[in-house]
């Protein structure tokens, strides 16, 4: 149990609320489409599909906690996976057995490239925000354009199809019965929870997001902490891109566009305060699960993707309304 919590009672109530939400959604969906919803296959597929969104939501949470926001996560994810894909194609050809069979060292190198892109993108954002002093909304809107634009230039438009088998394993494989994406997400979630609760970085982040001026007066390394939060966000985003391209065996400059809204939603629903200072890994994970159940149910109900999109919007509004109402009591 993390001690030195910001406000214990409140966080507990929020987590309980999320757990309740999960139960409610589960119950409703089970009633509406019992035969399809309650199949194990449904839940197993969630463990493959949810993690990439989960990583993006964690990225959103981290940057929101610092009082900013990272609107370029999708661009970073795509750029990272595209560059890895291009690397593989360069080495193993555009398709065929040579590509599929590329060895572990090569795949590891590709992994390194993708993650490096994530770090670089994050550093770029961090530099714009802490170095040039550009407000996060505008900085990441601009960088999102640049990253997506570069992705577009590199691919010319169409998807980069075909990744090595080892890469696919990251998106579709299982270890000890658990989906690899899920393991990756849990590892990251654990790491970030540790960072937030038990490191100076994490605590500084929360304080800076609560009151930046006071943080300066307390002698905290404000610029460095904010810079690192964007680097972390970039790392998470590129990891999401890796999983996504592993799962779909392709990388494209406009994949995952709807993930942006969803990641904001999950972060906010999970208890992150968009104004800064507060965030919870557990809350984000629970919110992710709740919304994935909801999405799965809606798909089984044959609701069009557009309606699902609209629902995300409505949910986002409802959760901020709830947060704001609760904060005022």
């Amino acid at each position: 149990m993390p001690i030195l919590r910001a406000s214990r009672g409140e966080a507990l109530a929020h987590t309980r609320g999320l757990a309740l939400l999960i139960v409610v959604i589960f119950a409703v969906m089970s009633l509406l489409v019992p035969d399809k919803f309650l199949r194990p296959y449904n839940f197993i597929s969630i463990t493959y599909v949810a993690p990439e969104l989960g990583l993006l939501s964690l990225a959103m949470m981290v940057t929101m906690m610092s009082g900013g926001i990272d609107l370029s996560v999708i661009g970073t994810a795509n750029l990272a996976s595209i560059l890895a894909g291009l690397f593989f194609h360069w080495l193993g050809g555009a398709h065929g057995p040579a590509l599929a069979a590329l060895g572990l060292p090569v795949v590891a190198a590709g992994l390194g490239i993708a993650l490096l892109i994530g770090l670089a993108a994050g550093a770029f954002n961090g530099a714009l925000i802490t170095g040039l002093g550009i407000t996060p909304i505008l900085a990441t809107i601009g960088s999102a354009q640049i990253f997506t634009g570069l992705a577009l230039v590199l691919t010319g438009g169409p998807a980069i199809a075909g990744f090595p088998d080892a890469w696919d394993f990251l998106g579709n494989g299982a270890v000890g019965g658990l989906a690899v994406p899920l393991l990756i997400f849990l590892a990251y979630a654990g790491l970030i929870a540790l960072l937030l609760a038990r490191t100076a970085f994490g605590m500084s982040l929360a304080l800076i997001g609560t009151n930046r001026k006071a943080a300066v007066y307390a002698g905290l390394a404000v610029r460095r902490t904010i810079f690192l939060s964007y680097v972390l966000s970039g790392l998470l985003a590129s990891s999401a891109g890796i999983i996504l391209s592993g799962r779909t065996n392709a990388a494209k400059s406009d994949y995952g566009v709807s993930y942006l809204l969803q990641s904001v939603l999950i972060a906010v629903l999970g208890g992150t305060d968009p104004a800064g200072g507060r965030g919870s890994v557990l809350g984000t994970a629970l919110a992710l699960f709740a919304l994935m159940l909801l999405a799965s149910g809606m798909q089984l109900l044959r609701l069009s993707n557009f309606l699902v999109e609209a629902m995300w919007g409505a949910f986002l509004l409802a959760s901020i309304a709830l947060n704001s109402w609760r904060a005022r009591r």
Partner: protein
Amino acid sequence: MGEALVALEGVSKRFGGVEALREVSLTLNAAEVHCLAGENGSGKSTLIKIIAGVVTPDQGRIRFAGETLGRLDPKGAIARGIQVIYQDFSLFPSLSVAENLALPTEVGKGKRVFRRRDVRAIAEAALARVGVDLPLETEVGALGVAERQLVAIARALISTPRLLIMDEPTTALTGREIERLFAVVRELRARGLGILFVSHKVREMFAISERISVLRNGRLVAAGAVGEFDEAKLARAMIGEDLAETPYHWTPPRAPEPPRLALEGFSVPGELAPLDLTVARGEIVGVAGLLGGGRTELARALFGFRPHYRGRVAIDGREVRLSSVAAAVAAGIAYVPEDRLTEGLFLSQSIDRNLLAASLRRFRRGPLLDLAAAEAACARMREAMAINTADGRRPVATLSGGNQQRVMIGRWLLREARLLILNGPTVGVDIGSKAGLHRRIRRLAEEGLAVLMISDDLPELVLNCNRVLLLHRGQLIDVLSGAGLSEQTLAERLRALT
């Protein structure tokens, strides 16, 4: 004394858990200067906001010219001839002087269209009334503090209000400007205006007002004609019982040692003229002067906000380079700003986190923090600073002003600061806590801390400091100590500053 303009009856107001006002009743009359006296945190601001319609009281009634008001909002208050000049001036930096002057009255008249010519006419007349000449089209954001205040005052006078409320208007004015302000106030009174002059400066109250009401901790503790008070009685009413403390006495260390703080030719171009200063361990050195005269500038420069300073700074004999806040903190310098709510505290975070904010490095064990050790240290600090709570996890916003100040000081003690700079240490702190805080600061000094205390509160300076620096226009013009350090002398010297 004219007819009653505004009468408050049994007005109370609570913000969350804090009682800002409790059953306050007072009457403001036309053609009279009424002074609302009280320290910061006494409830003055809330009272002003209630009269101005910005805040609604929880209990009590407001009567305006005899008529009981159901609900008052800012527009209604303005329409009834109530004008407020707030301490922060409430001006709009992006708009021009003329627009700032004319806008509120235009809004009050319910106008839709905004004609430049009318606005100019209004603006020129307003400035003339205050006897000031300012370029009308300049953005207010480009003006200096004193000029902005003049615009604020001129603006309030435009609509020839019936009641004018002035919240600590002389804070940023020089002697000559204060005299001009008083002249305007007297003229307005002669014309039949009621004036509510809010202040905590005793001398000014006697100079300008006819009736005085004293607020303390949200309650009206004294009221009457100015002749019924003398300075001592007034001060006591504002502060509470006589602080029968003996003045702080400093004993120099037995063995000679390098001073805790040594400044040689320390200056900040444009803000602070070169000054030499030494502060020894155990000293509590006061810093007095007018706002903008160098007190806060000195503090901020010492805390690393002016990396381009000149001169030498040494802590305990070792020269340090105050190139950033982090550097200053590393050197052992701590600063508790005056506005702790916006500049000091992380309100939604826990008490312990607030205490820990400057000491995170200290509790590192490898890449992680030793939370158990940190929590224990916080518990000890809470006890040492007598912070009134058993649970360090509660948000610091739930504490009273006095306890919050203890958290701020505790934060720096946890960091093992060597020089503690306090800016307005007891602002917004209730009387009981104030004495306690003073005692604690003195004890900390006796235990080896060096303290620099910036304050407007003369009794506080006189009783708690062994020396008081007088800064004016960025220059150190005098040091008062020993017999030369008394409330009287200090007040006289401050008044003489122009």
